[in-house]
């Protein structure tokens, strides 16, 4: 029975990859390597259909995902940079410093946060975060931190962009990273921490010198799991990214990510009677699948030491 169920999961995964490959083949053949490095995605729906390399395509169409690829990496990197310190702080607090009756409700809430659908984060960003960004955060960053590359320049009136996407993604990975790191830290053998206290170390020294090094692999694994979620995040990013076709020059400019672009533009695929846009979107889906699968596999290999299984239920896309 379990072999059957396990085998069906394998089968499902290969089915998805197979179907995507079949749809993406025209685009892979026609666009080649240029697909990954070109920054122009253009579907001239009014043009006529021509034959290119034996496949039908709209005249003047070009497909390049460089902007979306960089956008995905940029927003995820920003999410990690903002979110991981916060998550580690929360994890250290919950596992080392907080008394039991405070730590339990807080960790329960943190785990609840991981279960909230991402589109709700997007809506919250649209209603609450945007006004704060436009009126308070962005002008302040621009005024005081202008020397950091990317923080200077002009602040535009629209809050949607790299900063908003990075903030909302960091909010979404904090529950995952915090829970798994807290579990990793809680697994530190008692004799090591107690031994440290017995030698006269302060609680903070015990945390810094004993707990964190012991939980290092688990923490890194959790960060990579969080990165995996941030890479695949669709709806929240679609709402806050600003739908750009070009890379922005500052963090206040509009951006796009692979998942958000696919969500917003799949109707374009239907308008293209030659079918090449559908094919290009399928190839984009393959690239996104490859990136997230790679990250998830690396994460699981790193966190295998045992404390991963207890937080398995938190991982979702």
């Amino acid at each position: 029975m379990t072999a059957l169920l396990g085998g069906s999961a394998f089968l499902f995964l290969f089915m998805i990859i197979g179907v995507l490959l079949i749809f993406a083949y025209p685009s892979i053949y026609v666009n080649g390597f240029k697909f990954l490095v070109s920054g122009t995605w253009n579907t001239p729906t009014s043009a006529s259909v021509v034959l290119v390399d034996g496949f039908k395509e709209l005249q003047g169409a070009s497909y390049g995902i460089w902007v979306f690829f960089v956008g995905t990496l940029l927003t995820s990197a920003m999410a990690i940079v903002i979110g991981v310190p916060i998550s580690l702080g929360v994890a250290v607090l919950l596992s080392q410093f907080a008394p039991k009756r405070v730590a339990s409700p807080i960790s329960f809430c943190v785990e609840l946060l991981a279960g909230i659908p991402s589109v709700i984060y997007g809506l919250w960003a649209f209603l609450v975060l945007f006004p704060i960004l436009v009126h308070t955060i962005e002008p302040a960053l621009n005024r005081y931190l202008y020397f950091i590359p990317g923080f200077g320049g002009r602040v535009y009136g629209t809050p949607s962009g790299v900063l908003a996407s990075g903030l909302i993604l960091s909010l979404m990975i904090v529950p995952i990273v915090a829970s798994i790191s807290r579990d990793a830290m809680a697994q530190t053998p008692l004799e090591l921490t107690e031994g440290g206290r017995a030698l006269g170390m302060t609680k903070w020294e015990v945390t810094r010198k004993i707990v964190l090094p012991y939980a290092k692999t688990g923490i890194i694994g959790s960060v990579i799991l969080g990165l995996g979620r941030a890479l695949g995040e669709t709806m929240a990013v679609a709402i806050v990214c600003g739908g750009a076709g070009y890379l922005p020059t500052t963090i206040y400019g509009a951006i796009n990510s692979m998942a958000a672009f696919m969500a917003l533009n799949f109707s374009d695929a239907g308008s293209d009677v030659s079918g090449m846009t559908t094919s290009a979107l399928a190839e984009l889906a393959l690239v996104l699948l490859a990136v997230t699968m790679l990250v998830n596999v690396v994460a699981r290999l790193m966190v295998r030491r045992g404390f991963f299984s207890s937080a398995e239920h938190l991982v979702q896309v």
Partner: protein
Amino acid sequence: MASFSERYKKRHGMGGMVLGVVVLVVIIVAALAGYFAASSTITASTSTTTSIITTTLPPVTVTVTNTAVSTSVSTTVSTQTTFATPTLPPKGSSSLPTLASPISEAGSSLVFPLFQLWAANFTTMYPNIQVNTAAGGSGAGQTGVEAGTITIGGSDPFLTNAQQAAYPNILDIPVAISAQQVNYNVPGLSHPLNFTGNILGGIYNGTITYWDAAAIKAVNAGDASQLPHQLIVPLHRSDSSGDTNLFTTYLSDTSPSWAKNFGAGNTISWANVPGAAAESGNSGMLTGCQQTQYSIAYIGISYEIGSSGAVALGLGTAMLQNLAGKFIAETQANIQASVNAQYINTPPSERYSLIYGPGATSYPIVNYEYALVNMHQGNANLALDLRTLLDWATLPNYGNSPFFLNQVGFVPLPSSIAQLTWAQIAEITV
């Protein structure tokens, strides 16, 4: 701490696990079955803020009179054969065959408010026929009808030649005439600003960056001192949008360099203007324009008027330059003038663009709103109900009456165009 599933397995064993999963699935399936059973007995209502009239319209005797035609147009009727005005079945549940599922309409967000009004009122006349409406952009409407997933695709532009060649069975049926305006959020102006197509093209391709640019001041001599030295934030549509098609057609018609570099379409490759942002749907453009100071956006007329429209929100509406060189405001009279000057040229296929037409007082961005429908519905009852719905919508004393069109700012189809529409509707069969 072991996970929930591990603790459960330890306590209840493998058989308990399977039993638990089966029980859970049965509960979910039972809940879904109950929900569907309950909802099928409740008539679905899709109207949101638009008002529903509870009294049916009185059946006025159907005499179709020509709308006022300007004297510069020849009064001889074209050689198209006239099509008899359709008669509707008497109102009531027994007049039309009931369908297994509601008639679905989706697509253009510009025509969406009108379809919402029509759907609600059509159902009061024939209570057994439900019509579901949705927005999503003209591109989604076109794709849906081509794929057969929706019955009526609302679309601002007619299908392109390539699409029509690939799907020759899809009819482009105009149901009303709409318009589009350019709204902007600039405080402290006392009069609406004038814009030419070239200036708008310059804003959207990044060559005109400030509100007090020389080009804008040149056409707004009276208000030049009120223009602030602020960056313009151009907003465009992120989804596959008929409004983008209308706007870029206007830009292409007025500026050969725009036609060469960007062209017109439901989506185009927008220029890299720093600070520009994309919004989803006409409602997204309206919200984005209202929330972003010094922004400019192209929005459909159905979002201009009304209690939550652009005017009510305090946004400015541009006076656009027409083919005759005049700066024209978006009023019903000016839209009607644009229609009157050129509707005679519409071919029987009704695939015709009214944008940037002749006439001294013509508003430049005016177009037929299309209901894209497949000629072959596969089901005689569905074909009959669909024909009745579209006839109802385009009759001047029912769907095309001022009662509906004034709420969204549209104008009715001229009499000869309505006849072409009715001729196309009659082609919808099994």
